């Protein structure tokens, strides 16, 4: 198996070419991370809360089948139709078949990373259905025909100017307008029309409660409510890991979610759905798409605890400087880098290497996923599977030989330092040594520590 593992590196290099923009992106996300810190520090019980959330998730994952069956039973009792999808395709077919039953041609959709993961929009659009994303950030990137670059702030890579130009082109706002109030008003008018016309509303699910058969959708704009209440049919799509056992556990997660995501104490709207309204229909689609495979792996199971807050992205020094699109997957950043290889190991073999393993992601994670340790483990899996570049593998085999033989190591060290002293321009030639493109090499000393030590010993003893 051979892959082009440099994908992320190349995309990052392209993103960094506009250094001013990259700095702005970095600082914007750091600002969100700082807000998260202030929110976390406002709760003295923060670390206990994280521990509690992590334990609830550990427990839930250990009995996921039971809780999903309980969820299904209770949801059915409430009058919700429950569907099971093994993968993205099946999910899309189920959603489409519900639309067909209602002759629905216009749908509004609130933010859902699962539908992004399953590529629902293109699937429906190809079948003649108008899909309107109603989260403002999602709508912006939809108009630009781009995927989200962040799971919570999908258009975080864009500046006001980009939005002004985009709205001028699509929504008829004044050319050059950058006032957020004015642009938001325009989007609101545009979206209200779409809400009123929609036959079906699709939402994601933040938490589904096994005990009650209900589910919770968190938004800051109220767009999930507006869609679900106006349309005749509400389809809610969730990954199977989104189930929690009881309503009493919800408070733990709601307190952590938005503090971690944006530094807010809670989302503006935490909407609880339990049964269809009069004359309405409610569907819940439960999607696996590789999750049971991840569940079966002790090393990677923990990644299913993710509540999609995006805190790991905001803190990640790599994400902040390379942008979400460099990860070429629906869920970017550190968490995406441990989820994506489970879906397609070959396609995403580069992502576990797009990290310095600094560990900040694991520390901000509200459910304590050992993200950086999983990145390390994925590297081993990819190395074993032959999914890393052959040049890297050869280099590492060479190092193995070098470091397993002390005499060879000593000889190579001496030869290397001698070469660097005699031909410093070679060592600092960017075409031979990528280190030297933006950095200088250290000056090689005449003597290694080992040689110095041997000399000292000789002097003392001899």
């Amino acid at each position: 198996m051979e892959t082009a593992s440099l994908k992320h590196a190349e995309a990052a290099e392209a993103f960094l070419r506009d250094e001013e923009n990259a700095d702005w992106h970095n600082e914007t996300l750091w600002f969100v991370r700082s807000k998260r810190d202030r929110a976390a520090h406002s709760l003295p019980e923060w670390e206990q809360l994280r521990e509690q959330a992590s334990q609830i998730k550990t427990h839930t994952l250990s009995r996921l089948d039971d809780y999903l069956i309980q969820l299904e039973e209770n949801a059915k009792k409430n009058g919700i139709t429950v569907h099971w999808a093994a993968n993205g395709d099946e999910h899309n077919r189920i959603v489409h078949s519900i639309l067909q039953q209602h002759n629905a041609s216009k749908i509004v959709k609130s933010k859902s990373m699962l539908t992004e993961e399953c590529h629902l929009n293109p699937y429906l659009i190809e079948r003649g259905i108008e899909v309107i994303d109603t989260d403002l950030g999602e709508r912006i990137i939809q108009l630009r025909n781009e995927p989200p670059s962040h799971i919570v702030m999908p258009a975080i890579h864009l500046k006001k100017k980009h939005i002004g130009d985009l709205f001028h082109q699509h929504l008829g706002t004044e050319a050059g307008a950058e006032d957020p109030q004015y642009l938001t008003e325009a989007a609101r008018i545009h979206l209200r029309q779409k809400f009123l016309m929609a036959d079906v509303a699709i939402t994601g699910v933040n938490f589904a409660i096994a005990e009650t058969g209900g589910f919770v959708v968190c938004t800051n704009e109220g767009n999930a409510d507006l869609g679900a209440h106006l349309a005749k049919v509400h389809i809610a799509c969730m990954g199977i890991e989104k189930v929690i056992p009881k309503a009493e556990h919800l408070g733990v997660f709601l307190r952590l979610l938005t503090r971690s995501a944006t530094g807010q104490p809670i989302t503006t709207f935490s909407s609880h759905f339990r049964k269809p309204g009069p004359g309405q229909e409610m569907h819940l689609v439960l999607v696996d798409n590789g999750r049971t495979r991840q569940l079966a792996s002790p090393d990677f199971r923990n990644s299913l605890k993710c509540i999609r807050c995006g805190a790991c992205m905001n803190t990640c020094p790599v994400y902040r400087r390379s942008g979400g699109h460099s990860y070429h997957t629906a869920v970017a950043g550190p968490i995406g880098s441990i989820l994506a290889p489970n879906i397609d190991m070959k396609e995403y073999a580069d992502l576990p290497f797009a990290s310095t393993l600094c560990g900040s992601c694991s520390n901000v994670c509200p459910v304590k996923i050992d993200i950086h340790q999983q990145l390390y483990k994925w590297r081993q899996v990819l190395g074993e599977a032959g999914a890393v570049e052959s040049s890297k593998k050869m280099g590492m085999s060479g190092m193995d030989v070098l470091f397993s033989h002390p005499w060879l190591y000593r000889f190579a060290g001496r030869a290397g330092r001698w070469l660097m002293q005699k031909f410093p321009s070679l060592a600092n030639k960017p075409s031979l040594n990528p280190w030297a493109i933006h950095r200088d090499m250290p000056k090689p000393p005449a003597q290694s520590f080992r040689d110095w030590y041997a000399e000292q010993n000789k002097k003392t003893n001899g």
Partner: protein
Amino acid sequence: MNVGLFIPCYVDQFYPQVGIATLRLLESLGVTVTFPMEQTCCGQPMANSGFQRLSAGCDKNFIQNFANCDVVVGPSGSCVLHLKDHLHSDERPDEAARLRANVYELCEFLTDVLKVESLPNARFPHRVGLHTSCHGQRGLGLSSMSELVAPTFSKPEQLLRMVDGLELIELTHPDECCGFGGTFCVFEEALSSKMGKDRVADHLRHGAEVITGGDMSCLMQLEGVLRRQNSSVKIKHIAEILAS
């Protein structure tokens, strides 16, 4: 206590003065230190690149070299963390486990084992920026982490405060990664360099004359950036300052 000095390969080859300072510092504190001559590398480069399997030879060599030592001390958080987490041997599993439990990064050895409370001879009258390396901080727990709601502390800082004349500067991002990341520095060259540049800029903005830290690999990254900028700001491993 038979202390084995572990000098990581790149320190041995490129920064012998760091090894010398570490040795002198330990000896000045009354520790008997031996340096096993056949040691090479901790195996981290292979492991972090996805080939932990290929570090078996390294592990074997390490165990062979340090088997007689009660504890192992090295001036590199990153290498020490790798050994603590991954040193492994099918043939000598007990030996490997004992060494994993008894390998220390220099600062933690000084604060936690030797319980050093003063360094009467240390003098370094400069404005110093401390680069907190990720593996030392988050991996070995050498200092508190800005992400966690927990009391603040720093073992390297605690030691630097014992040095006469030294002025420690504040940083905007006290624990941001420098971008070295082992082979990341080559395979993600553009990103790695940018991270290094940003890290250096934080120190320069706050008027550092010297940047220090417990990991020479991070410092090599920062030095590479400083040199390219023709900066007069110097890099010194914390051992060099504590031994000065």
